[in-house]
């Protein structure tokens, strides 16, 4: 059957099981949007800005495990995707971004809305393509999905020239092959098992790779079998229930006291699907000094990149654990667990429960309907959410970890809502919210229920905290001094706004927020007034070691 390029694109998306696309039309994608209109099988979510579309595709991918798809036109449409693509790249989120480009006769002539988007996105995609011949289109789209969803997942961009979208070509449907992880190189497993069996005080560090591999249940099995505590990275949040006796909480710069103490005492680190980023390793040379490091990662280039491993295996975490578990001894480590319990008690005792953000997040977590994803922006509120908002299942947490993208939240929450069909909780701050609050329009027009907890302190809290710690309280450009009325803003967008002033009862307000969000199927923005002086603690300074964790800041 002969179809136009635009029709072939839509058919190929259908082949891949794509049911939702986030995007924004424009001159060079008119044919694609026309084909979309005529097909009617794919739901297109029109965002307010292409960046929102990219973040939405990212959020959708994180909660579903499927590849997120976004569309944008050439030139500014394409460049607006860049931050969203980079965010997905840094967090290994599978995504296919489709852009239009000018016709072949206009290419390379600085034509209207022409940009070399494949050139621009080389460093932030797993791979990208420019399609100049309609005969290559179908296979390119299929390959894009294969690349995005296999190995270490990530974004792929496909730039399609306008005349390719118009040209006709024979199209034969292809059923996509299921992507299966590569077999585990078994010769290493025995050595790894030996090292784990010989360990006295092991600790598991579970990263985003565990979520990506859908290996959370195996982590639980492993920790029970070994009597081994689990620390998760920001990207690994959700891989173990927070109330599990072996769960230590988040590890890293703002990780729990329990993770820091455990790591300091541990003799063996079992690092699963994690890349020892500078926010986790902090001091890469001293992080694992005198410890046995067993590193499992799907990406060969992560092995020995930041922290040198004693033993490693380059494979999917899930596949590795399946093969490894039978080789491991069932162990009871009473002495080690007694210590862990003491660390956890200390952690609970020293938790800064005085801060208002803590109370708000705890209450929200308790009130949120079952299966609601937690989405965050970036900064203090992100760390508070990671510390205090319990996420007990995988794929219910979306946060920009690697890139730290302020403005990620609104778009991602919309994507997460479409992916789960539930009511996401978006935790944001007034800095971040200001960057993509335009997506409130999208959420309203698509009647997306969500509860937005806007941690409103009038400052760029995390930057300000660093100014406190490292720049002698010189608060350069971190006081926002805005006069925005967020409740009125929400109402003007057609959403619901609520003020949670410092005198108001948290539970009553939040209960009403959840109720109204679900009942009216609309975003509810809760303007949570908090003090600008609340800090994210504990903290380990960059480049420092886990025995130097700070539990309080000197205020003056």
């Amino acid at each position: 059957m002969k179809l136009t390029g635009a029709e072939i694109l839509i058919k190929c998306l259908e082949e891949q099981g794509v049911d939702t696309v986030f995007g924004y039309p424009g001159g060079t994608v008119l044919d694609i949007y026309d084909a979309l209109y005529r097909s009617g099988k794919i739901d297109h979510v029109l965002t307010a800005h292409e960046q929102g579309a990219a973040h939405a595709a990212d959020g959708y991918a994180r909660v579903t495990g499927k590849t997120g798809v976004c569309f944008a036109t050439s030139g500014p449409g394409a460049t607006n995707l860049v931050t969203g693509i980079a965010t997905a790249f840094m967090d290994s989120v599978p995504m296919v971004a489709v852009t239009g480009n000018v016709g072949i006769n206009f290419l390379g002539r600085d034509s209207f809305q022409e940009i070399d988007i494949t050139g621009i996105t080389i460093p932030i995609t797993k791979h990208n393509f420019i399609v100049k011949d309609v005969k290559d289109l179908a296979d390119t789209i299929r390959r894009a999905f294969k690349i995005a969803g296999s190995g270490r997942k990530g974004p792929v961009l496909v730039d399609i020239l306008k005349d390719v979208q118009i040209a006709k070509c024979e199209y034969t449907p292809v059923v996509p092959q299921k992507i299966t992880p590569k077999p585990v190189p078994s010769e290493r497993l025995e050595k790894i098992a030996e090292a784990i069996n010989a360990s006295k005080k092991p600790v598991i560090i579970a990263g985003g790779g565990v979520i990506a591999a859908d290996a959370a249940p195996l982590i639980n099995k492993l920790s029970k079998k070994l009597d081994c505590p689990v620390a998760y990275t920001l990207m690994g949040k959700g891989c173990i229930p927070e109330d599990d006796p072996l769960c230590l909480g988040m590890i890293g710069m703002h990780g729990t006291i329990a993770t820091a103490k455990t790591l300091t005492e541990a003799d063996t680190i079992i690092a699963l699907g994690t890349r020892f980023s500078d926010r986790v390793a902090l001091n890469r040379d001293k992080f694992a000094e005198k410890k046995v490091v067993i590193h499992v990662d799907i990406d060969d280039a992560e092995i020995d990149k930041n922290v040198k491993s004693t033993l490693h295996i380059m494979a999917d975490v899930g596949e590795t654990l399946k093969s490894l578990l039978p080789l491991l001894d069932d162990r009871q480590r009473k002495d080690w667990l007694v210590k862990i319990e003491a660390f956890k008690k200390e952690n609970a005792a020293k938790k800064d429960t005085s801060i208002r953000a803590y109370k708000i997040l705890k209450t929200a977590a308790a009130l949120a309907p079952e299966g609601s994803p937690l989405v965050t922006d970036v900064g203090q509120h992100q760390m508070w959410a990671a510390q205090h908002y319990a996420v007990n299942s995988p794929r219910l947490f979306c946060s920009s970890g690697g890139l730290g993208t302020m403005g990620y939240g609104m778009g991602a929450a919309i994507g997460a809502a479409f992916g789960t069909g539930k009511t996401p909780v978006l935790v944001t701050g007034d800095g971040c919210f200001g960057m993509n609050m335009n997506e409130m329009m999208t959420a309203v027009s698509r009647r997306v229920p969500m509860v937005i907890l806007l941690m409103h302190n009038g400052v760029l809290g995390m930057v300000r905290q660093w100014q406190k710690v490292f720049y002698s309280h010189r608060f350069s450009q971190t006081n926002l001094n805005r006069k925005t009325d967020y409740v009125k803003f929400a109402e003007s967008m057609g959403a619901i706004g609520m003020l949670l002033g410092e005198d108001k009862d948290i539970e009553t307000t939040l209960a009403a927020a959840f109720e109204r969000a679900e009942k009216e199927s609309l975003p509810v923005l809760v303007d949570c007034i908090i003090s600008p002086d609340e800090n994210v603690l504990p903290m380990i300074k960059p480049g420092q070691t886990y025995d130097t964790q700070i539990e309080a800041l000197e205020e003056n």
Partner: protein
Amino acid sequence: MSEEKKYTIGALAYNKSGVLTRVTGLFTRRGYNIESISACTTEDPEVSRMTIILNGDEYILYQLIKQMEKMEDVIKVGCANELDCVYRELLLVKVHAAPEMRSQIIQINEIYKAKTVDLSPDTMILEITGDPDKLDAFLKVIKPYGILEMQRTGVTALARGKHTLKDRDDGEYKILDKHRG
């Protein structure tokens, strides 16, 4: 960190537009110090081959190879064993050569097995092929005559014997395997 030295890296990649940009972009953004890179198509027109000379330590070498191997268009990457490789580079150099100097230059050419490929009333273009050290030595001798312009191709290298980069796993072009899973 281990000691800095020179490594010769061979790579096969699909001969697609932009592949060299992708590879060199990787080197720039990861801060790898590349002395030379030469690339051209092979006996298979769909495949091109690169020879990269890297200044760095073992850590950089492993990272470069692994990061390159992740690229979709890259087929294989290997680090050549210095002792079992043939290295060649070509140099063209245009020198001042007034008539009274010509015979001196031609004498130097003979010693280095260089060729005169162009002659004008007061210049010559010389061509020499060899390993980079030989080219350096030749240039040192030629320099006093006055170099007008020059161009080196960068190093190209092949492993001796029957082994090829394609079957690198049993060849001299062996990726440094000790850290691999």
